[in-house]
């Protein structure tokens, strides 16, 4: 298979199975590797969530499902153990936030689309790109393995606050499980940094002729900004993790002070657990946007293509991503209003946090205006984008309550928070990812996914998702704390509230199971279509951006012959000066036509 394809500028290696499918330098293959790994972590995280949802809906009842997955050690007699409940919650969060929505989402689509949409033969460094994937793979593996060790996985919540996470005596998961968590995260961060640096360098240096920054598709803008946020914030998490590792192993006192645990008086003095929270959230908040912005980028591209309209307010869209990215660095302490932090500091963070609502609102209004007087074609991707805008609104507005320090006193660490971030970050990003998979599947695999199953998948997922998270707001605003194994404690306080919480928890769990079954439809469609899907044409969605000018069959270097030259922005849909309702970026301007 050693075929040299028209490669005058690009070096081509002999392609063995290993170099093509495993240690590939090719960004398209790496993108697929990321996607497959992300699917594995995503499905695992989803199953974990069903396991603890069963406990929340039917506390203390024996379940075959639990004993099947957790065995006698963690679910004796089919009843989940308290510690493992927290372990499931922790690993669910970690896998979803970091592995599916950070590594998976950016890794898949930044890799696939950056070179293709800017007209580059590959990433700036194929080797670093490969390294980035394999570090990601390794860290995913370690995180998944941590589920199987004897003392259980990390159990202190995905934010792993010390001292709980620092002291093995405080919970069983803070032993080996926590060490693996920290090692996995350290490797993950290395992977993320390698990937991000590569994306940044590629976007800056390898744009093809005519591809000025203001002609970049919004996807590339989103990936570019996301990579910058990642490079600036992830190192802080790395240092937080390393300090925690030192507190655990070398007896330092960065986060520990005046503690008696398990009857043992520790000598640590002078550290502060709050320091960890500052460091964690300095990454943790930008992280939310690392998850969200790529999804918003994908949606901008798909919404324009499938409404056959230019995205409304291109410059405002770029500007709002920049504004969100900047603001995301000065809002972190809104996670810490009730930690005993100086109240004045709190007020500053209230102000900066609420400012984020402005660029977010601009984005939403621009999406809605793009729909206005469009000619909407309902591909499954379109549906998921509308779902994304819907969840971005629903989750965004509740953020206004949480950002208000005074109101945060009431709802901090309740299910209201859980509902808020699942809707605004989780759902939006997952919807964006699904949309991306449906839309770019022909580019990735050269085949089409089944549309009908796509419709079923979307509607089941949407209804399931709202069925899960709407009631959760009500539980939360009623005051139910999160990370509770069950709510029996309410029996001592208010039996009415207890009845309400249990009621709603049953509803939530049923919808969660429905939504999970909906994903089976997706998985079936996805894997079936890779092998048996209809063969794709070169530009199935009649889109303008450069990736659709490459041949369907993948090849090293992306374009046979010369790289394309770009003459216009990517959103000339239904331009009245043209007959066709789309004008690819490679079409030169007509005489007298002004560039956008």
């Amino acid at each position, binding site marked *: 298979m050693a075929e040299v394809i028209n490669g005058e500028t690009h070096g081509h290696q002999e392609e063995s199975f290993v170099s093509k499918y495993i240690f590939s330098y090719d960004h398209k293959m790496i993108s697929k590797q990321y996607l497959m790994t992300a699917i594995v972590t995503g499905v695992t995280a989803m199953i974990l969530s069903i396991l603890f949802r069963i406990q929340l809906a039917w506390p203390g009842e024996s379940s075959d499902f639990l004993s099947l997955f957790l065995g006698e050690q963690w679910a004796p007699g089919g009843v989940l153990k308290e510690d493992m409940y927290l372990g499931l919650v922790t690993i669910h969060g970690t896998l979803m936030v970091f592995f599916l929505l950070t590594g998976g989402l950016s890794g898949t689509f930044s890799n696939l689309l950056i070179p293709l949409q800017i007209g580059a033969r590959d990433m700036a460094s194929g080797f670093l790109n490969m390294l980035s994937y394999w570090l990601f793979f390794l860290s995913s593996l370690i995180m998944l393995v941590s589920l199987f060790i004897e003392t259980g996985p990390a159990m202190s919540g995905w934010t792993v606050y010390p001292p709980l996470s620092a002291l093995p005596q405080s919970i069983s998961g803070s032993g080996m499980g926590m060490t693996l968590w920290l090692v996995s995260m350290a490797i993950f961060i290395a992977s993320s940094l390698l990937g991000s640096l590569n994306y940044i360098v590629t976007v800056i240096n390898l744009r093809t002729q005519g591809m000025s920054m203001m002609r970049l598709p919004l996807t590339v803008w989103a990936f570019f900004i996301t990579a910058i946020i990642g490079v600036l914030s992830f190192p802080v998490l790395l240092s937080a993790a390393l300090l925690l590792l030192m507190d655990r192993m070398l007896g330092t006192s960065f986060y*520990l002070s005046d503690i008696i645990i398990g009857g043992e008086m520790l000598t640590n003095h*002078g550290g502060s657990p709050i320091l960890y929270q500052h460091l964690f959230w300095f990454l943790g908040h930008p992280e939310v946007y690392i998850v969200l912005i790529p999804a918003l980028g994908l949606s901008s591209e798909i919404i324009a293509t499938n*409404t*056959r309209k230019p995205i409304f307010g291109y410059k405002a869209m770029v500007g709002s991503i920049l504004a969100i990215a900047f603001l995301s660095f000065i809002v972190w302490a809104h996670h810490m209003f009730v930690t005993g932090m100086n109240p004045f500091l709190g007020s500053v963070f209230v102000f900066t946090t*609420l400012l984020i609502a402005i660029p977010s609102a601009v984005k939403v209004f621009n999406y*809605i205006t793009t729909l206005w007087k469009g000619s909407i074609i309902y591909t499954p991707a379109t549906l998921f984008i*509308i779902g994304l805008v819907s969840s971005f609104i629903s989750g965004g507005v509740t953020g206004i309550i949480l950002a208000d320090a*005074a109101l945060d006193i*009431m709802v901090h660490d309740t299910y209201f928070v859980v509902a808020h971030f699942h809707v605004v970050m989780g759902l939006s990003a997952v919807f964006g990812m699904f949309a991306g998979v449906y839309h770019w599947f022909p580019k990735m695999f050269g085949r089409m996914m089944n549309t009908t199953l796509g419709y079923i998948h979307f509607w089941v997922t949407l209804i399931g998702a709202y069925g899960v998270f709407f009631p959760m707001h009500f539980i939360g605003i009623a005051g139910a704390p999160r990370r509770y194994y069950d709510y029996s404690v309410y029996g001592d306080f208010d039996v009415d509230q207890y009845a309400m919480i249990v009621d709603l928890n049953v509803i939530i769990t049923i919808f969660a199971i429905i939504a999970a079954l909906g994903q089976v439809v997706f998985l079936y469609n996805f894997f079936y279509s890779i092998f048996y899907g*209809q063969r794709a044409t070169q530009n199935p969605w009649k889109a303008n951006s450069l990736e659709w000018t490459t041949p369907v069959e993948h090849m090293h270097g992306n374009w046979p012959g010369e790289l394309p030259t770009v003459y216009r922005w990517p959103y000339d849909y239904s331009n009245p000066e043209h007959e066709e309702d789309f004008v690819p970026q490679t079409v030169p301007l007509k005489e007298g036509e002004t560039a956008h």
Partner: protein
Amino acid sequence: MMVSKLIILVVIVLGAILIAQIMKIQRTLSEITGRKEEEISQKNNRLNANLMLLFMIVLFGGFIYLMQEYGWTGRGSSASKHGHDLDWLLNLNLIIILIVFFLTHFFLLYFSFKYVKKPGVKAYFFPHSSKLEMIWTFIPASALAVIIILGLTIWNDVTSESSAEAIRVELFSKQFDWTARYSGKDNKLGKFDYKLTLDNNQLALMTTNTIDSAIQNMETGPQGIKTLEAKLKDKNFVTSKEEKQKIKDAIDRKSRLVRLLYQMKNRYDSKMDVMAWDDIIQKDTLYLCVNKEYEMTFRSKDVIHSAYFPDFRVQMNTVPGMTTRFKFTPDITTKEFIKKNNKPKDFNFSLMCNKICGGAHYKMKMIVVVLDEKEYNDWMSSKANATFKDKYFAKTN
């Protein structure tokens, strides 16, 4: 049970077969008709557009149903003074965000329904409009200005210093329970240091006596330095190398602690004893007096916990190594609250832990009872002979 499992299994299998059949039929059909997956039929476009409209009805209907069923907020009315301000602010915010939620969703889903592709109609080329973009930057900005100003005013109020008369109470947290400490007659809480923790001084209060006891325990107690050193020499007792090292480490640690305790002893002024002696330590139930301001401080022995009183709209983390605070004034007694809100007879105000703190996190609670002034004073006088001194160090003068 067996039957229902069987039914579930059959449904799953049938579902899988159904999907496979749909795929098969579609594949055959598209081969015959030459239909391409990317060409969305007008029928499918219409179907999804209509579903968008239906979804709007389901979404709004579902939301309104939940509001009716579980109340505007699902939370009872506030039982503290500042809580009423917070409730007012929450309601205002909810109104604003619900308007935004309904309006934007209406436009989103209505446009999705209305502007579905129609044969022969080209989309309207509308790349930008500075005027519109200015409008929707300005509107949210001004709404947010209101929210920020009101929010910060109330926040400053809630977090401000308490008055000098405020009753001082400390909440002490550990895995997995709460202990309250009332400041007694002088309204001054005794000092503390975690190194003073002993079985009979769980809260590690600082007096001349407790410092001496701690030193004594550290030096000659059952796990004291002397005992450990003796153990180390006893060949029958210490067998493995690791065990030896472990004991050596413990001696090391204790020697450091003892040094610090001696420093404490030298600096300590015994006049401060009285501050701690009259403190009242209370487990299980926290009694508060209606309409009295409380300056509550929080402490933790081991990991971070969070003192969460949903009814009083109070929440504050308890952090090992530092003291946190919150002030509030309960403004309704438990009895009146039950009457006013039609709560069941055995209703109680709650204190829960709201920061993940270990396996039994969900069980870490304390019952809170608000009494009227007379009842409260009666309860206090019943505790007059149950101070820290009476209970733990009755022998000392």
